[in-house]
């Protein structure tokens, strides 16, 4: 079969293309121009083509191929269905923007050689694609682990720095704890048939207890990758450590493979989820959303701030998944499809918004060498392109209409509004309160984003060196524009996007929100409920009002504009240090959500000659859960240390005893 008439073969060919592009980097690993100007744009092109191939024909029949690679008697199966298509489009389109940006980003002398970096980067992309196509546990786990390992090497590309090494270690550890849980989940899902293809798992009959166990294990495993509380600890360490395009891919795309995994296992492999399963991701998701956004608000490192914001968005996604499970389990499939559409839409949105923001921080980092918000400011003057394009991402992720973040928030709130119709007492009263949590998290996200943008790009430069910051150049600019345009289009054309996503919801829950009966500009997914939204009209009205106001003010009053220094209250000259800092902007949040934080504060006394203010905001979960756990592992290892003799005879004795015990057991 030629790749032209088989989209699945075309997708595989494109993934192989990524691998080849990556391998080509080894030809001239130190050559920045070759890697940057040739290979990365090629990778971006492959991504765009992948998005088109996967995005054309959501309604095409499910296609499967058995590959001739793998272990003997254990070939790899791949399959292309609407759910994979949605996530392949996400992967291809978001990574195209990131790769474009990356072509101008990686430079010589920053850790790993560019060519090697290119190999890791493209293997990372290809493995994510293969995760989405895999149709048996073996292929899935191989792709999943390749994804974890390649991203580990990308995170630790500046391995000379000890913090980055330990961040990488934490990431690898969490990735593997998660992978073990996923593996165990697949072990249950095969249901005694010992066939590990997904088809066998779909056919397997599981008792409710085993099915629940498989679901919870999958939730744990994929939750660790997505960064759900309390498994989020690696995210704020690994994201700042990685180079910005890698952070963008990890946050924007890799986290979504975990969402894909949860959806695949719950709705496809398990088939009929019990309704109460949904309460687990729902509760965890709400807690994660609030936790993430509150922590994001007090961060002073711009990439940590974005990492915590990703934790928040993962929480929102899990909330939607939980809601969909509850609805589906209660037989309310149209509402389940609405919640699922909100999840898929938000995943797509977040891929664009968060990649855009991470790339924006990358541009700032390159121009200034600073990640600390306390040393930035006023960059919109020196970096107008980076500034204004980042503003698009900021407004989108703050959930403002008519951009894309608002659409998925709207869909999620709409589906939460129906949650009181669930036929389970108590639960139907508690679920709508989730809307309050989602609304609070969304409003806090606005707070976080005003802080993020205001402190970096607005105000006066807090350091003299910032006056020499340079704006992004051609390819970097193209990458940012690509993602910003994506944010705008996803915001303005919800009906078309939902029309495409509805094929995936039909596959998963057997229903879809109604989009066909509406005109192209109107989003009204529930015909019996007068709830509608039209971003195009809204934008047109706002533009019309703003334009008319501008013209009236301009031509009726015709007053000139004069520039003068800012008012200094009649005291001394205005100083950049008089501006609010990132710590200051986080103060109300530290005050209001005091219980969330483990805070250490050093306050100066009024008489101090050299006053010093220091505040460290720590994570209680890290101290309460991970440090004791780490200590326990350490003590267990210490108590077993006597076994490590360093003599070959001792180890042979161990093997002998093991064999004897095994024989005794088997016989």
């Amino acid at each position: 079969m030629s790749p032209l008439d088989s989209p699945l073969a075309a997708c595989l060919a494109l993934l192989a293309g990524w691998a080849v592009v990556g391998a080509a980097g080894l030809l001239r690993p130190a050559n920045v121009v070759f890697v940057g100007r040739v290979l990365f744009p090629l990778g971006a092109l492959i991504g765009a083509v992948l998005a088109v191939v996967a995005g054309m024909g959501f309604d095409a029949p499910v296609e499967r191929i058995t590959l001739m690679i793998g272990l003997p008697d254990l070939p790899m199966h791949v399959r292309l269905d609407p759910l994979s298509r949605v996530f392949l489009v996400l992967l291809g389109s978001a990574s195209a923007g990131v790769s474009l940006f990356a072509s101008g980003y990686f430079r010589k002398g920053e850790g790993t050689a560019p060519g090697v970096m290119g190999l890791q980067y493209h293997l990372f992309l290809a493995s994510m694609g293969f995760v989405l196509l895999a149709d048996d546990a073996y292929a899935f786990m191989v792709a999943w682990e390749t994804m974890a390992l390649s991203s580990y090497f990308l995170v630790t590309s500046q391995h000379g720095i000890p913090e980055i090494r330990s961040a990488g270690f934490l990431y690898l550890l969490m990735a593997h704890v998660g992978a073990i849980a996923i593996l165990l989940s697949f072990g249950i899902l095969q249901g005694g048939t010992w066939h590990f293809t997904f088809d066998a798992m779909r056919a397997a009959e599981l008792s409710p207890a085993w099915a629940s166990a498989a679901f919870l294990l999958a939730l744990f495993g994929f939750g660790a990758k997505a960064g759900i509380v309390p498994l989020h600890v690696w995210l704020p360490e690994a994201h700042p450590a990685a180079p910005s395009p890698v952070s963008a891919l990890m946050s924007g795309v890799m986290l979504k493979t975990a969402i894909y995994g949860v959806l695949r296992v719950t709705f496809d492999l398990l088939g009929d989820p019990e309704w109460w399963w949904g309460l687990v991701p729902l509760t965890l998701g709400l807690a994660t959303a609030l936790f993430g956004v509150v922590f994001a608000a007090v961060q002073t490192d711009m990439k940590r701030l974005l990492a915590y914001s990703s934790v928040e968005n993962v929480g929102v996604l899990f909330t939607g998944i939980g809601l969909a499970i509850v609805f589906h389990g209660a037989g309310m499939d149209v509402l389940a499809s609405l919640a699922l559409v909100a999840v898929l839409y938000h995943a797509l949105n977040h891929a664009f918004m968060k990649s855009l923001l991470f790339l924006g921080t990358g541009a700032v980092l390159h121009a200034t060498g600073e990640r600390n918000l306390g040393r930035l400011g006023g960059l919109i003057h020196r970096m107008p392109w980076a500034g204004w394009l980042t503003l698009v991402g900021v407004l989108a992720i703050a959930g403002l209409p008519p951009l894309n973040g608002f659409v998925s928030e709207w869909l999620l709130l709409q589906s939460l509004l129906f949650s009181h119709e669930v036929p389970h007492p108590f639960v139907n009263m508690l679920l709508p309160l989730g809307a309050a949590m989602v609304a609070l998290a969304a409003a806090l996200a606005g707070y976080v984003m005003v802080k993020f943008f205001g402190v970096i790009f607005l105000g006066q430069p807090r350091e003299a060196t910032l006056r020499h910051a340079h704006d992004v150049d051609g390819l970097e600019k193209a990458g940012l524009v690509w993602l910003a345009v994506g944010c705008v289009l996803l915001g303005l054309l919800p009906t078309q996007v939902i029309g495409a996503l509805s094929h995936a919801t039909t596959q998963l829950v057997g229903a879809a929100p109604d989009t066909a009966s509406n005109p192209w500009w109107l989003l009204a997914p529930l015909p019996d409920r007068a709830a509608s939204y039209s971003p195009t009209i809204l934008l047109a009205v706002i533009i019309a009002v703003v334009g008319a106001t501008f013209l009236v003010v301009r031509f009726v009053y015709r007053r000139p504009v004069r520039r003068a220094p800012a008012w200094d209250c009649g005291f001394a000259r205005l100083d950049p240090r008089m501006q609010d800092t990132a710590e200051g902007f986080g103060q109300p949040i530290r005050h209001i959500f005091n219980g969330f934080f483990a805070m250490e504060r050093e306050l100066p006394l009024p008489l101090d000659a050299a006053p010093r203010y220091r505040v460290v905001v720590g994570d209680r979960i890290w101290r309460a859960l991970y440090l004791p756990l780490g200590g326990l592992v350490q003590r267990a290892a210490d108590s077993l240390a006597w076994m490590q003799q360093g003599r070959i005879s001792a180890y042979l004795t161990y093997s002998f005893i093991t064999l004897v015990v095994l024989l005794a057991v088997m016989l």
Partner: protein
Amino acid sequence: VSATAWLTQFLEVIAALALAPLFLGWVNACRARLQSRHAPSLLLPYHGIRKLFHKDAVIATNASPLFRLAPYVVFGAMVAAAAVIPSMGTGLPFRTAADAIVLVGMLAIARVFMSLAAMDIGTAFGTLGARREMMVGFLAEPALLMIIFVASLISATTALPLISERLAAQALALYPSLAFTAVAFTMVLLAENARIPVDNPATHLELTMIHEAMLLEYSARHLALMEWAAALKLFNYACIGFALFVPWGVSIGDAGVVALAVSIPALVLKLAVAGLWLALIETVSAKLRVFRAPEFMATAFMFAVLGLLVHLLLGA
């Protein structure tokens, strides 16, 4: 969509633009009377806006284009918001384009742009004001959303004109949940419009101001737009309150020109009472310390959530 509907839509936006400064003037006049002061002219806000439009604008040397764009966006968002609030009639053509969640989103656009503009110059007061405005906003916004959700659960829609229409149709049915949300709404209205007890619109007392701190760098036409937008915001909030809690007197659906004509005096009457009520609250309460403001908004949020719970428990 009939011609009456378009007429309603047009009249509503014009009424909002025209009456908003008058409403502000009325609140100020009532407050002065209640505090035994000589009341300023009702038309003072108009004079203020007109005066500002006729001045030369002065802009800080390090202002970015965002600073000049923000007043237009804030004003535009407020006008667009006015277009979906059924202050005179519920048969608005714009209502399909924007439901109540979008309305909250439009108010958020104004808040975010105002805060960003306040941070643009990099003065101490501007950033302080921006921080406080966002602090008020992140609690007030979900509270407002919850208030709207209670009403939309009762009326099975999220389109504000339809909510209003369905609530009005139920004559004088009493909803305990709406009582809670009415308290929450009053608190949100006070907080979001920079009124006492959260902020004091009458002073520039530096350490406590929120809204005025964000506008310090604005002058002339930009300030005029910001002031007008603030008046529109108060007007919009008042009309959201009418739509949810006193939905009577508006022209329902396609009721024709007569109903529309009746709705104008009804609106003016409601505004007059609301202004008096607002002035009374402001007169009898004292300004809170900024530290205490989050508690005030958190209480509003809790009241709104309580309203939701009451609705779900009692089904009313």
